């Protein structure tokens, strides 16, 4: 655990870039969902069906895919960079499971950070857009109520972010855990 945290701190810039990409994807999704809740609140349940057009949902899905690819890329780099380290700890008696755990924790931490920041930003942006546009106190109060009622979406965003990060870290982590220690030790960066 401490190992993963230290690893992130050492490669801080790259961790930040990865986290930013998660933040963007998750913020986009969180904003879209919050907006749809506010629109439903403003126009009544009848209009609910059109509140979130499918093309918008597709855009969110693509944004999430892009950020998943970013995580895979970053984790693969992290694995390649640490071939020798992985070889060393395997030599010292680490099981495949330990190495898997190491990289999944690293991915998971980035997922949590990205999800929290992204979820809050997305929710905040959606709220701000409608709050500023509100012409009357009535509209304004409906918007506020709908937005506050959508805080749960932040929770879902964090959950999604963590799941996404873990899934994306799975392949690089698996590759790392299956490295042959002899070859990994011989590898020079």
């Amino acid at each position, binding site marked *: 655990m*401490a*190992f993963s945290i*230290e*690893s992130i*701190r*050492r490669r801080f810039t790259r961790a930040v870039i990865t986290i930013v990409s998660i933040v963007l994807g998750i913020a986009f999704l969180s904003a879209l969902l919050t907006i749809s809740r506010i629109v439903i609140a403003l126009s009544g349940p009848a209009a609910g069906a059109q509140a979130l057009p499918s093309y918008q949902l597709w855009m969110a899905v693509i944004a999430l895919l892009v950020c998943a690819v970013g995580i895979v890329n970053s984790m693969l780099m992290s694995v390649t960079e640490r071939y*020798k*380290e992985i070889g*060393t*700890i*395997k*030599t*010292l*008696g*680490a*099981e*495949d499971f*330990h190495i898997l755990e190491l990289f999944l924790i690293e991915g998971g931490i980035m997922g949590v950070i990205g999800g929290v920041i992204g979820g809050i930003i997305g929710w905040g942006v959606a709220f701000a857009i409608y709050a500023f546009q509100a012409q009357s106190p009535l509209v304004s109060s409906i918007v506020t109520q709908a937005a506050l009622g959508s805080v749960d979406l932040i929770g879902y965003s964090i959950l999604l972010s963590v799941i996404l990060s873990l899934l994306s870290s799975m392949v690089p982590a698996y590759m790392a855990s299956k490295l*042959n*220690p*002899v070859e990994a*030790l011989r590898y020079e960066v």
Partner: protein
Amino acid sequence: MSSVLRYEYTVETEDLAKNYVMGPITVKALDGVSVKIRRGEYLSIMGPSGSGKTTFFNMIGGLDRPTRGKVYIDEVDIAKLDAYELAWLRARKIGYIFQTFNLIPVLTALENVSLPMIFAGVGRDERLQRAKDLLERVGLGERLDHKPAELSGGQQQRVAIARALANNPVIVLADEPTGNLDLHTGLDIITLLKNLNSEKGVTIITATHDLKMIDVSDRIFWIRDGKLERIETRKEVSVRPVER
């Protein structure tokens, strides 16, 4: 653990061979090596680069599978172990020391030494206590919280030695432990290894070109082109002019 002499031979190999296939060429890195290494021995494997020393190490350390032949560690045929049992063996029975130290750069000296104990499932408090004791034993009691980059080469190798001893292994494999150190520091490391060998009764096997190592070794294996050329005791070496 010093008085329990359950197995006479800690390491035994029988006709050990390893071939590397590189395209059309087959390289015989190791070609029929049979040795018996006694518990508590201090052993040096000498030979030019590319003679098969490291390959030999990888075999007895359970890192690589031989093409032919057998390796026994404490009378267990390691070819019969699965990946999980091999990891178990590496964590508890074998300690490694590398030429390039191979400490984990993001961890402190103390954390580096406790790492193998995590893999062996030792509890946190005991882990830290043992790591502290070991670092004090190698003379780094003042440097527990330093990262490898803040330590000199000799100090890093001391941390690596403490790490190798973390789980009270029966064998310590040291691959060119003095190869990256100057003469004086190298001598310190050799003395430390010898002292640990006599104190703890741990079998130490070093692969080396370092002739200083001969003075502390009980026996010397000379390896050339993947074959065991001859085995000598310290006395036999010192009466004969050393060839290079």
